[in-house]
């Protein structure tokens, strides 16, 4: 909880700077790219986040990576600051919250679509339209496949879950039968 609160503070600080110079979108992308790098390379993440090594040594490693990157200078300095403050291990949380904040600014909402079979493009377009209508926001959907749904799909938007899967219908039918609701 405390770590999450601190991550939010750092994310808000970076966003504030990004809004001032108008590059908050680029900063968000840089941050997401670095968080993805940490996720894909856990050893690198362990080295720069391990307090057993000195700050100077860890900073050398970080700088070596940042010099090879095309990140904005502000983002590079932000990452160095996280390392100085021993918060570099929470960069993924910072990135996630930063994305959430930028989505709110851009009136974007993230949706997770789980489908039993691949969805056609025209179906995806229809879904974007209808989900945008009910949320009054631009929907950015991430699609995953899950055969256990049997058929249909499930859409999760924040706390809202819209379940149109065959599995859910079967579960509903099963519960009705168990309760003795035959009609």
């Amino acid at each position, binding site marked *: 909880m405390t770590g999450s609160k601190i991550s939010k503070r750092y994310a808000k600080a970076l966003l504030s700077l990004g809004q001032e110079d108008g590059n908050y979108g680029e900063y968000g992308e840089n941050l997401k790219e670095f968080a993805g790098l940490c996720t894909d390379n856990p050893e690198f993440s362990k080295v720069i986040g391990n307090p057993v090594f000195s700050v100077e040594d860890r900073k050398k490693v970080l700088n070596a990576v940042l010099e090879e990157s095309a990140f904005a200078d502000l983002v590079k300095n932000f990452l160095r600051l996280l390392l100085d403050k021993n918060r570099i291990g929470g960069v993924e949380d910072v990135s996630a919250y930063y994305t959430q904040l930028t989505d709110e600014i851009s009136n974007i909402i993230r949706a997770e679509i789980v489908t039993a079979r691949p969805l056609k493009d025209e179906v995806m377009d229809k*879904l974007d339209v209808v989900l945008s*209508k*009910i949320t009054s926001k631009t929907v950015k959907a991430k699609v995953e496949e899950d055969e256990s749904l*049997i*058929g*249909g*799909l499930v859409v999760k938007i924040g706390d809202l879950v819209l379940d149109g899967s*065959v599995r859910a219908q079967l579960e509903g*039918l099963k519960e009705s039968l168990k309760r003795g609701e035959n009609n």
Partner: protein
Amino acid sequence: MIRFTGKKGQASLILGMALLFLITLCGFAFASGGGGNSHDQMLNLFYRILNFTLLVIILVVVVKKTSMLRFFGERRDEIKEKLEALAKERQTAESRSRELETKLGEFEVQKKEILEQFRAEGAKEKALIITEARERAAQLISQADHTIEREIQGATERLKQEVVEMAALRAEEIIAKGINDSDQDHLVDEFIKSVEKLH
């Protein structure tokens, strides 16, 4: 000096006089009978009478002077008192006996009453125990009936759940085997329509 007072004294005096009269009469009779040595015989008789009279006087004096009469009188009174006391005690004992007999009779009555009461209470208790036992038996039977009913309901419900689970599993297998892209498109269209209705 000898005094003859009271009834006893008079009686003694009369007795003494009668005795003296009889002796004198006997002397005259003996004298009128005649004989040779009448003077000696009269003297002998006189001595004997005198001797006897002295003996009587001595006896009377001795009796008077000693406490023999008083002793016998006291003894008589004592015996009389004892007899009276014994009579009273006898009366008391008889009274006590009658009282005890009365009480014994009362006890017999009480005994009968107590026995009757105990018998009545015993009968009442018996009836109560039987009634309670019957009620308890009825309750146990009722509880057993309810338990059986619940068990049957539970078993029916469990069986129903199992049947539903198996039917759902079987339905899932059939649907999973039979579903195709067209069905998926139809399901997605239905989903989109239902979501549109939310707006």
